[in-house]
């Protein structure tokens, strides 16, 4: 009788400890990867990080965060391409397709009515995903996806006005849009400064998106 009970307790403990171990392990792994985000400067860095988050998402299929970060890494590949003024390659499209699937999965994992903060973050990456499509082929896709990419920035800001990343993306857009088309580098600077301000006021839940500082500074450095 007692023996059985002990066995039962031991079994429960085993499961709990395994679960707890894994959970904390997962959190630890996520934290390690998230910490690497700010130093991801090259396409290869982003690809490796994207792989890492994709693996984490495979092991935690219910959590939107690893999908979100994987999508972000794959979208950032496009932004790095753009900043370096390189021509897009075939692989860019594949990263973009991957990004699209991942961000859509992330979206499907949240409660879009109640999780406004999460939704706003996802909209930000969706904007990046559509922007990347334009980088791939500005002549063909500019017309097709330009308005959608802009719309998601507006949506992200509307859903959560404190979203520093949405402000950053708006600043990015203002900076890189030619003056003749309504781009405004002065306004861009204001937006990027505002984004930095918002970032310093941010107190995100553990593992929640906090990126943006390095991105803002990269543009501000160009002034």
């Amino acid at each position, binding site marked *: 009788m007692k023996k059985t009970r002990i066995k039962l307790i031991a079994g429960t403990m085993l499961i709990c400890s395994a679960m707890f171990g894994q959970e904390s392990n997962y959190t630890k792994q996520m934290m390690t990867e998230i910490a690497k985000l700010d130093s991801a400067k090259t396409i290869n860095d982003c690809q490796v990080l994207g792989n890492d988050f994709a*693996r984490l998402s495979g092991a935690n299929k219910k959590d939107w965060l690893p999908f979100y970060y994987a999508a972000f890494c794959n979208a950032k590949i496009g932004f790095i391409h753009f900043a370096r003024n390189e021509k897009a390659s075939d692989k860019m499209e594949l990263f973009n397709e991957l990004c699209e699937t991942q961000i859509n999965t992330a979206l499907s994992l949240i409660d879009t009515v109640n999780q406004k903060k999460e939704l706003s973050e996802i909209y930000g990456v969706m904007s990046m995903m559509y922007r990347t499509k334009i980088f791939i082929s500005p002549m063909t896709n500019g017309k097709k996806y330009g308005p959608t990419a802009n719309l998601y920035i507006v949506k992200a800001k509307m859903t959560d006005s404190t979203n520093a990343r949405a402000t950053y993306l708006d600043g990015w857009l203002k900076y890189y849009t030619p003056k003749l088309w309504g781009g405004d580098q002065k306004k861009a600077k204001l937006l990027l400064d505002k984004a930095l301000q918002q970032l310093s006021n941010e107190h995100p839940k553990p593992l929640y998106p906090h990126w943006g500082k390095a991105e803002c500074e990269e543009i501000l450095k160009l002034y």
Partner: protein
Amino acid sequence: MRFSFFFISISIFGLHLSAQTSISGIVLDKSHHPVSYASVYIDGTADGTSTDSLGQFKFTTSAKGRQVLNVFCVGFEKYTRQINTDSPITGLTIEIQVDQTSLGEVVISAGSFEANDKTKGANMTPIDVVTTAGNNGDIANALKSLPGTQQIGEQEGLFVRGGAGDETKQYVDGTVLKSPNFPSVPGLMQPAYLSPFLFKGINFSSGGYSALYGDGMSGALILESVDLPDQSSSIIGGSPIVGTAGFQHLTDNKKCSYGINTRYVNYNAYSQVIPQKPDFFKGPEYITVDGNFRIKTSNTGMLKFYVNTSYNNTGMINPAVDSSNLKTSFQSQGINIYDVLSYREALAETWKVDLGLTFNYSNEQYTNKLLNENNEQVSLPEFPFNTLNNSTTVQSDFVNFKTVFSKYIGNNVTIRFGGEYKYSSDNYKYGDSNTVITDNSTAGFIEGNFKLSSHLAVNVGARVENTSLFNRSNAAPRVSLAYRFDNAGQINIAYGKFYQVPEYGTIYSSIIQNEGVITNTGNFLNQFKYLNYSSATHYIINYTKKVNERFFRVEGYYKQYDDLVRTYPYLNNGGTGYARGVELFWKDKKTFKNIDYWITYTYLETKREYLDYPSLLQPIFSTPHTASLVVKRYFEKLNISFNAAYYFATGRPYYDIRTNSASGQPEIYAQGSTIAYNGLNVSIAYMASLFKKKRNKDFSIIFFSINNVFGNEQVFGYNYSYDGLNKVPITLPAPRTFFIGLFINFGLNRTDDFINQNL
């Protein structure tokens, strides 16, 4: 008891932490090059890593026993393998395969170039086509920068692989585009009726095309019109030559759109500033009003209607070929109305239907006059001057109705079948005579597309046609296949038989050109009705390879022409011919930063015996060597799009063919070859917003272009006098063509669209 519990839990925990198995190895592709940054991991866990730049990986896992190892890298198929992680694994060599689906489906591409929004990498896009410098707003002209076409500058149309201009047909949403261009004017290329921006899909076939299409025995240009626009917009634009205004409205539910565009073109002012060789006493003047209505009838249904009404008036005076102190005047004036209605809908899960209905009406009057030095009409009784005062009116009605059913069987088989009906009635009024050519023709077709594997696709089809004009029928088989290698290279093969009803107008004008008149039209018409289809048999093989942003294609073909029409001694189908050649195409978006370019080379050897050719001759619209280079650069920060196109072609043959009055047979009295053809076209488009402050920002384009920048002399052939003593070169109206214009667009950012539309 307590002790043992602790013991157990500690030992389990310890086990949990310490039991890590290490796994290491290398990931290679099929040709044993290392694959860097591939993700290697144990299925269902986060245990794994990415390969380094040498393809090597090493990681540890706590998973035990039989596990699945996954390898994933963009552009490759996902790799899985059973492993046992009870003991460390080292030196794994994993070979991963290129993902065929990332290369897209195997699309058979023998003889064809396709440009649509879905194309990837180095493939053509509609924008690539329409921004090609010097296309004058005509897709067919832009396609002259692709292999297989001849540089014919004195006439509109596509002259494909030894075929005449009327042997390449154009189709819009499945049905025949009866007249792509304004009616021909001697020596002057005429603009297209339809804007190139009406189309989202352009498929140019220089042979071996699908059984769904008929009539063009040398080539086909298959166009797919755009669906709903992204948003409402309006445009206004002007230049010394053209004025344009239009709007496009998208309803709030985004399911329906309509629009009207108007265009007025007149070269009068332009020819005052830049002298033109023929003395234009009228125009050239073109007016077009077009309208469209498009509605999404369901999730899968789309109905589109387009109507184009055009008026043209061109009058010009040239020195008479037959006399140094006389002149000839030519005037062409008329209207053309073209409507096309198309509807597509998914009938059931695996069925789809495409309907198309086209109507075309045209009425064109051609007036020829003989003038004296003071431009007064004169009539002289002797030949050939007695034939130079005349007037012809051609009135045409054309209807085409087509139905195509598609049945999808699984993912790999598609069967298409259907039928079409065509009615055409052409009324030629020449002097007192009135000739009506009426044809009711029907066709049925079936085609099966089989994707036999991710490497192999086969297309088998057949088409049967009947024409009431000749009371004849034919059956045309078509077969094509594609095999793709792992390195993304692909071999395409096509065979097909293509029939065409000889065109009365072509034969008629050929006779007029040589004899001045048709003495007995009744007899001529009877002879015409005894004719049969002309035909061509195509054999095509090509190899294509697309890697990243580069595309290479080499294609070889042989074509046999049969039953071509001869005009001597009476109208008959005794003509034959052949064409064979090799073509190269190279497109590259990668080598030069921000520059997209393509190079083509076309080798053509062709001869035909047709119309009045006394024997097998190289046709006047062909030359052995043609090359072109197209360069595009988009300066994103400056908002300037720069396009250049350079063309080279060896000389074309010309003949003085006349009837020997003794034998009654045509004879070549003189022949030669024109000088080589050279031309560079450049266009620059600057895009800006002129009223930035306004709430509805505009998108405006300043467009500038020069055709034949260096003013190279271009001779396309010669016109001979009736006695053969005088020949006059057919050349450009002016050495260079200039264009400058401003187009202001409100609403939609159709920046790229308008670059060349209004040229």
